[in-house]
C-alpha cells in the first residue's frame, strides 16, 4: 500500500527532529524502575511492582508523545507559511487533515511499538516472564493515545494555542476522573443533579475505560468482547474529532 506523501512527511519530520530520542529517557526510567522494584521482598512482588510501574510509565510516555506530535502539526504549517501553499496548490483541506492525521497515527504507532518492545524486553530479561495480558494493555494504551491525539488535533485548530493546550489537558484529566464521579454524585444527594452530571460526562471521551492494567494485576478477567468494544469506542471518538477538524478546516480562512 502506498502511503500519502503528507503522511510520510510527518514521520520524516519527527525523525529529523530527533523526536524518537525519547526512547533513551524511557530506557533510563526502566532502569530506575527495576532498581526501585528490587526493594520488594520476593521475586513475584518485584515483578508485579515493575509491571505496575512499567505500564504507568509506558502510558505516560505514549500519551505525552502523541500529544506533542499532534498538537503543533497544523499550527507549525500555519506559522511557517506551508499551509497556504499546500491548500492553495496541492491538496484539498479535508485531504490535508486526513493525510496529516494518518502520518501522526503512524508516528505514534511506531513510537508505541518501540516503547512496548523496550518494556517487554526489560521484563523478560530481568524477571524471565512475560504475561500474555500485556499485549491487551499495550493495545488499550495505543487506543487511548490515538483518541487523545485526535482531540489535540481538533482543539489545536479550533482554539487559540493557550486555550487548546489547556483544553486538551482538561479533557484528559476529566476523562480520567470518571472513576470517582459516581462516588461524588452519590454524595450530592440530589438524584436529578446527579443524572445531569452523569449525562454530561457521557458527552466527553471517557479515558478511564482504557485503564486495563489494574484489572489484570488484580487477576480479574477481561472478556474479549470488551477489547472489541474498546476498539470501536476509540474509533468512534477518533472519527468524531477528525470529522470535526475537517469541517472546521473547510470553513476556516487563512
Amino acid at each position, binding site marked *: 500500500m502506498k502511503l500519502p506523501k503528507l503522511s510520510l*512527511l510527518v514521520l520524516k*519530520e519527527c525523525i529529523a527532529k530527533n523526536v524518537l530520542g525519547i526512547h533513551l529517557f524511557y530506557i533510563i526510567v526502566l532502569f530506575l524502575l527495576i532498581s526501585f522494584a528490587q526493594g520488594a521482598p520476593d521475586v513475584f512482588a518485584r515483578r508485579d511492582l515493575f509491571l505496575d510501574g512499567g505500564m504507568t510509565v509506558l502510558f505516560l510516555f505514549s500519551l505525552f508523545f502523541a500529544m506533542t506530535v499532534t498538537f503543533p502539526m497544523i499550527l507549525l504549517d500555519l506559522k511557517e507559511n506551508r499551509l497556504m501553499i499546500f491548500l492553495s496548490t*496541492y491538496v484539498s483541506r479535508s485531504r490535508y487533515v486526513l493525510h496529516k492525521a494518518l502520518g501522526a497515527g503512524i508516528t505514534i504507532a511506531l513510537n508505541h511499538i518501540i516503547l512496548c518492545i523496550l518494556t517487554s524486553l526489560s521484563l523478560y530479561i530481568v524477571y524471565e516472564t512475560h504475561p500474555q495480558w500485556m499485549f491487551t494493555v499495550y493495545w488499550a494504551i495505543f487506543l487511548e493515545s490515538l483518541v487523545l491525539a485526535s482531540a489535540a488535533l481538533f482543539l489545536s485548530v479550533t482554539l487559540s494555542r493557550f486555550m487548546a493546550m489547556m483544553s486538551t489537558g482538561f479533557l484528559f484529566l476529566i476523562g480520567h476522573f470518571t472513576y470517582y464521579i459516581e462516588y461524588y454524585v452519590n454524595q450530592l444527594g440530589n438524584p436529578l443533579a446527579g443524572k445531569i452530571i452523569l449525562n454530561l460526562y457521557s458527552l466527553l471521551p471517557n479515558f478511564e475505560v482504557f485503564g486495563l492494567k489494574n484489572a489484570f494485576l488484580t487477576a480479574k478477567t477481561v472478556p474479549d468482547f470488551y477489547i472489541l468494544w474498546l476498539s470501536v469506542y476509540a474509533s468512534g471518538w477518533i472519527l468524531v474529532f477528525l470529522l470535526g477538524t475537517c469541517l472546521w478546516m473547510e470553513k476556516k480562512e487563512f
Partner: protein
Amino acid sequence: MSSEIAIFASQVKKSFRKNPRHKEKFPVLNNLSLSVTKSQSIAILGPNGAGKTTFMKALLGLVFPDSGQIQIFSHPAGSQMARQRLGFLSELPLILDFLSRQSFLNHFASLISDAGHSKDNTLDTLIQDLIGNIPIDLPMSSYSKGMMQRLNFARVLQKDPELIFLDEPATGLDPIGQLNIVRIVNRLRELGRTIYVNTHSIDFALEAADRVVVLHQGRIVTDQMCKDISRSELENLFLGLDSIRS
C-alpha cells in the same frame, strides 16, 4: 493571444472584523472586478492595506468573499480543478529544513502525481537554471534566502502551472536575485504562462508585466497596459494615494 479567461472576479466584497470581540467590520475588498486572459501577465500594485494580499488569497481559495464571484479557468476558486492549474510562490519561501534540494522537489513532485496532474517538460531547462548552483546534499536549513526562493520557484514550475501567482517574489533578495526573478518571469511570459504578481515595486511591475493594476482601499484605481503608462505617472499616482491616506 488566447482569449480564454484565466482569472475572473466579479463584484468581490470582503470585510474583516476590527477585533474578534466587536461586530463592526471594515471593508477590505469593495466590489472588486477583474478579468485576466490566458497568457497575460498582470502586476498588482498598491500601498499597504490596499487589499492586494486578501484579493490574492481569495483567488487562491484561502479566503472566502462575502459576496461576488471568483473563477479560475471557469472553475470556482479553491476547487480541485482550479488548484490543479495554478502555482503559488509566496513572499516567505516554504521551508522543510530537514530536506535536501532533491528530496524537497521530489516530495512536491509526488504531491502533484497524487493529485493526478500530468507534467509537460518544457520548463525543465528553466528549473535547472534556478537550482543549478544550489548544493544537492545539504539540508535547506543551510540555504540563503535567495537559494530558498529559487528552490521554491522551481517547486512551482515543476508543477507546470498555467497560471502562476507570485506574492512579492523579489522582497528580501539582493539586486542579482531580483534581476533573476524578473528574467524568469519574462521567460515564463514568453512560454505563454499567465502571471499574477503582487508587488510594491513599480520597476518590477513595469519590467515583468503586460498590465498593471493599482489597488487602493479595496478598489481598482488604475488598470492599464504597461506600455500605456510611464514610471513617473505611476509614481505620481502613488503619491496621490499617499496624500489621501495621510
